[in-house]
């Protein structure tokens, strides 16, 4: 049982003008796998390190299992942390690295041996126990670092970008290993990454951070389908959401108009957009929900939008088609197409966006309207 409650948390580094974390409020449930994600400098590592007790809290409170942690040192918080650079003690063998925290807690030697060997078995590193960190690959070192964290059976596991030093294949493999471990250990885990795919594939819930502010704390699919603002909509998803800044005007009912295109807003969206008549709004549509009108006949699509193909990036299973609307040659957008459908640069055709997936944001506040 381990919940983490973060209340009005604030962090200002000495000498800094702006807060690195501003008024964060997050409640992490027991046994939950929560990912903190955001671009570089958004404060995600700072937040994790404050949970660990490695950074002082400027204001607010962190409680684990309803016990205030602010004044407790890292060792008294019953947490374990896995670092990006593994942080293994270079002069100790794998066994000693894993056993060190237990030795400090004066656990009997026989018990230490049993615990370390069990952990090594779970992570499949039994054959590495006598080796020194310098004699191992990055993936093996990261397993040892995870092993070191599980031997103590802590209430909470903290991961600070643990996979970013590994190559792409190993990263994918370790991702599933960590998820498996989460199920096996039934523990609360907080995981920091800047990679939104890692966040989407691993997290039960994801905290999206920007400039120290929590933008949204939700499940991966909710972040993808129902982002609360333009930042989350653009950050989650790859390739990211297409945005067009424009205006809502009253013409044939309600119409969106921009340099790129002009279209009548579908009936379903009209009630929401009515109050924005005459105001600046941003139209957002994901590359996944754009369809070639020639092929897609079942889905409810928006009216025809004429496009010209600008460039094509085939990635095997599908292709990223970069295009521009015929009204504005400067602004490029992207859609994902089945690689079986053959397009060439310069092709002109009509696309439509799934009406259920059209998104509108207030350009001034960036909050989602629909």
């Amino acid at each position: 049982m381990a919940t983490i409650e973060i209340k009005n948390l604030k962090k200002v580094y000495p000498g800094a003008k702006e807060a690195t974390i501003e008024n964060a409020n997050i409640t992490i449930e027991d046994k939950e796998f929560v990912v903190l994600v955001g671009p570089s400098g958004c404060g995600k590592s700072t937040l994790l390190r404050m949970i660990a007790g490695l950074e002082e809290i400027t204001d607010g409170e962190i409680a684990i299992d309803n016990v205030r942690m602010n004044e407790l040192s890292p060792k008294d918080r019953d947490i374990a942390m896995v670092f990006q650079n593994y942080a293994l003690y270079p002069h100790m063998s794998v066994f000693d690295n894993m056993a060190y925290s237990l030795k400090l807690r004066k656990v009997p030697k026989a018990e230490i041996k049993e615990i370390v060997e069990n952990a090594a078995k779970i992570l499949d590193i039994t054959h590495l126990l006598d080796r020194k960190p310098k004699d191992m690959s990055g993936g093996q070192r990261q397993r040892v670092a995870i092993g070191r964290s599980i031997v103590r059976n802590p209430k909470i596991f903290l991961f600070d970008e643990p996979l970013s030093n590994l190559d792409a294949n190993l990263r994918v493999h370790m991702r599933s290993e960590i998820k498996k471990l989460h199920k096996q250990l039934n523990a609360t885990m907080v995981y920091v990454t800047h990679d939104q795919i890692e966040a989407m594939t691993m997290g039960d819930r994801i905290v999206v951070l920007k400039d120290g502010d929590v933008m949204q704390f939700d499940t991966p699919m909710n972040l993808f389908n129902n982002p609360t603002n333009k930042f989350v909509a653009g950050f989650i998803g790859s390739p990211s959401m297409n945005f067009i800044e424009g205006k809502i005007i009253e013409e044939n009912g309600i119409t969106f108009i921009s340099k790129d295109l002009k279209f009548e807003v579908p009936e379903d969206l009209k009630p929401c957009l009515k109050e924005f008549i005459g105001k600046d709004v941003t139209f957002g549509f994901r590359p996944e929900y754009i369809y070639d009108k020639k092929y897609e006949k079942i889905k409810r699509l928006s009216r025809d939008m004429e496009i010209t193909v600008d460039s094509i990036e085939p990635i095997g299973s599908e292709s990223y088609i970069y295009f521009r609307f015929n009204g504005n040659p400067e602004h490029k957008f992207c859609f994902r197409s089945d690689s079986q459908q053959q397009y060439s640069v310069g092709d002109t055709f009509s696309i439509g966006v799934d009406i259920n997936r059209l998104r509108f944001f207030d350009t001034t506040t960036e909050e989602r309207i629909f």
Partner: protein
Amino acid sequence: MKQIKLQKILFLIVLGIMTMIYIGPFLFSLSISFSGDKNVFEWPISFLPDDATFANYRNVWNELPFGKWLFNSVLVTTIQTISNVFFAALAGFTFARLEFPGKNIIFTILLSSLMIPGIVLLVPKFIVLNELSLINSYGGLILPGLVSVTNIFLMRQFFSTIPKDLEQAALIDGCSYFRIFWEIFLPISKPALAAVAIYTFQGSWNEFLWPVIVTYTEDMYTLPLGMASLRHELLTDWPLLMAGTILISLPTLAIFIIFQRYFVQGVSSSGLKG
């Protein structure tokens, strides 16, 4: 290709000349130390004495209080080396890894003390030790050399290069800061510690000026001072003096050869990776 070869040959010639300039006096001392003839300054210099003998080495041991001087030197050097390694590492760790008010000011003051020539400090040091009644005592010989700012600086630079993650992992594992220093940082800092140990050993073993000032009876002399006392105005037993000098340079030589790797690393450091 030909030019590169020529450059190499030129380089070797220059290197050879430089080596001879440095090693020549040592070889000459070595030759004199085996000489049976006390009149050693005859021209041309003979590097291989006709009447080679070990008598000078025997005499150093038998005729002089060499054992007592050796004891003094070993005592002073051992204490100063151990203390320098420990305190330089401890202070270096403190300046590199701990946060406390006035840290930068204290460090700046320490560093600026390096700008004061050592010779200027001789008189104040003497007066202080005199007030403490430590003149002509082991305390007087040892105390001023227990810790050096240069060594603190070297260790601080080394510790600064060790990733912060390592310290934080240890904190989470349950270490106190002293334990992090003792069990994590010290074992991975062997090259820097060896450099500090070698520098201190060399400096302390060969120290001449301070023992001259702080001691005045023969039984408190260290080896360099003892050897210098053999030089008299009218007659100096050069073979005996050289035999003693060769003997006292042996430990430094041995340590340099054994720890050469660390020594070079130490020189190139002020910041080695952990």
